[in-house]
């Protein structure tokens, strides 16, 4: 038995499915592909799979990870090929590798966010966003299991870069992610929407995951 780490995308039409649905899709794909994976031994046996970090519904995932256990001889290329045959539009297997880090090592995530104005000039959005990010404190409401609490979003930002063009404002931002400290970029974007008072459309992609030393997760 060996462990494998499946790197995949969750983009296109599949970015509209929830994490729970993703789990179901993957279980079904693994079952359908007949890849020799380890099945749980309960009353309802199913393939044993584990995901790295849930992705919010609507966010494009460019580097998602899933771990599973292979029980018979099969090449990684074969696994990739067979799984890709069984997945809906937008979920694609990028590669299969031996896990190097632990899932709990994830500490940061890179996001690319494109912000489109509805009835507002992009330059105005650009200014407001910069002003927001330059504040000492960015207080946002975060829903937790114990209720809503105010957090300082600024503490979760590792680095960022804002650019603008005629169509949209481009925000590249690295945020805390993982078990210890995790934040959803939508908290910042909702605050921006309130500030500019415009029905902004935001297209968010999560593009990379890192460990505490900013080494790319693998």
């Amino acid at each position, binding site marked *: 038995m060996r462990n494998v780490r499946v790197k995949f995308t969750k983009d296109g039409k599949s970015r509209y*499915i929830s994490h729970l649905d993703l789990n179901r899709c993957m279980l079904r794909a693994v*079952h*359908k592909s007949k890849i020799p994976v380890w099945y749980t031994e309960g009353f309802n046996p199913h393939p044993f799979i584990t995901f790295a970090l849930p992705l919010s519904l609507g966010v494009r995932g460019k580097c998602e990870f899933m771990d599973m256990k292979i029980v018979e001889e099969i090449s990684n290329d074969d696994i990739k090929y067979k799984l890709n045959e069984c997945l809906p*539009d937008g979920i694609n297997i990028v590669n299969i590798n031996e896990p190097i880090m632990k899932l709990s090592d994830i500490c940061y995530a890179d996001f690319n966010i494109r912000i489109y104005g509805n009835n507002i000039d992009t330059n105005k959005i650009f200014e407001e966003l910069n002003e927001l990010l330059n504040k000492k404190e960015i207080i946002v409401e975060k829903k937790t299991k114990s209720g809503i609490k105010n957090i300082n979003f600024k503490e979760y930002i590792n680095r960022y870069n804002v650019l603008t063009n005629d169509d949209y404002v481009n925000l590249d931002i690295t945020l805390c992610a993982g078990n210890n400290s995790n934040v959803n970029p939508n908290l910042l974007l909702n605050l921006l929407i309130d500030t500019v008072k415009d029905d902004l459309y935001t*297209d968010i992609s999560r593009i990379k995951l890192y460990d505490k030393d900013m080494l790319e997760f693998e």
Partner: protein
Amino acid sequence: MLGKKLEKILLKVQKPARYVGGEINSVVKNIDEINVRFAFCFPDVYEVGMSHLGMKILYSQLNEEHDVWCERVFAPWPDMEEQMRNNNIELYGLESGNSIKNFDFIGFTLQYELSFTNVLNMLELAGIPILSSDRKELNQIVVAGGPCVCNPEPMADFIDIFFIGEGEEVDLEVINLYKKCKKNNESREEFLLQASKIEGVYVPKFYDVDYNDDGTIKSFKAKNLDVPSKIKKRIMIDMNKSYFPKSFVVPSIGIVHDRAVAEIFRGCTRGCRFCQAGFIYRPNREKSIETINEQCKNLCESTGYDEISLSSLSSSDYSKLYDLLDKLKCWTENEMTSVSLPSLRVDGFSDELTSRLKSIRKGGLTFAPEAGTQRMRDVINKNVTEEELIKTCEFAFKGGWTSIKLYFMIGLPTETMDDVKGIVELGQKVVNTYYKDGNKTKGKSVNVTIGVSSFVPKPFTPFQWEPQDKIEVLKEKQKTMIDNLKSKKIKLNWHDAETSFLEAVFARGDRKLCKVLKLAQENGIKFDGWSDYFSFEKWMSIFEECGINPEFYANRRRNLEEILPWDHIDYGISKSFLEREYLLSCKNQTTPNCKEKCSNCGAACFKGGICFEKR
């Protein structure tokens, strides 16, 4: 690809994956090679529609035609509808994302009366004229099938073609005729006239209805000598040769019935007198074990499902059930695939069965005694006894089950308050059975859920002439049950009497109801099957505005001589048989099932199925 306009609204609605398509096995074709575009519309939300087997069959079948592209369309939930209307997005097919406005066919499946308003709303959302008479060109042919078309009249002003009976053959014949007419530049009228001559096709615009002063039907006549005076249902008599898909579209989100489904037989031998399906799908026709096994294999292979449901109206009635389960076991066990049997009868649950269905979840068992007393069960011809129910429950409790659901109806013909009390009493007897020696699971209590719906008299049943209990009476009966409930182990659930009333109105309605439906749509009525959207007050004011008394349809006892709105539709079941059954029910007399003895219902006219098998 999704349009930018659509992407911008998707994150503002609940469950956006309902509206994007792209699921495994969904069919995308090259538009340049397509001659006929077909929008298969299910007038309810995605999760409900995607669970429907009929849609899966016809979707695959139509898409096997190289120049036909069938796409799926579901009713957008009101939050999505609002976004679509605000952003000028017309109702679109999930496969192409194109508006269905200019499709050749817009097909609806009418599974329940409370979805009728959704049909109209979907047409309107697509920008298609709602009234058949406002559609003039040879496109936008609105067709409908499904059990509710056995009385098509309340929808007659909106639908161009009804498919009566089973759609597997007739839809292709109509499409081929359409192709021919399109090629020859023939008119819509000409196409519909030719279509009306195909068996199983009903084009309501070619018929006239006259009414008596009291609102009953005086005459129903074809306008034109060329169209049939009676429309006979189509049927697939050999179920082994009947088309069945090799794959299903596998939804990426959870749906109501998320598993592979194999239909093991059509029709039912039982003849429960309230059950429309038990009559309109006659005769009973089984698939062979080999066919079912092959179809299950194909489906699991192509979908990745690890659960198969053996579907039918009463699955434990399949003649070689144990052999079938043994055959399936040969491969399902190795592939970690479970087999489940829905619609088990009280008398169909046994040791032998459970030992074969290893995967029957210990979650809960559901049985439908339908009525609380033996007399009442005899009236409805349910042919299940109290001893059988208690025996089955005893067996289930010994096997470790602690939760049982029982379904009943109130408002059945001849019902008295004693029959109503009998429902709760039967529930109590099941609870008592649990606490008898040796039945109880240590440390666990028993849960008996009693689900009670209100009886809706349906066309093509022996009760088609019967009035429905008035809403006040149904509520009184519900109250009686609560008052007689003694045990906390019993949970009582029921359907709203108001929704059952509306169902009764449209189930046996006539063409006068078309204007009611139209006005309802104009007033924003939709999703009547969902309690969050159903408004009885709104409906009542619409009936009033149209000058129509809904009680005329729901609560009136019809005369046996009366012309019924669906008398021109022929399901093979003779009216005289239904009348005989009705009179037997009045005398608390039962009728044996088709396997024991033929009761000459008329279904033998289809020349197959159980009618011609050895008894």
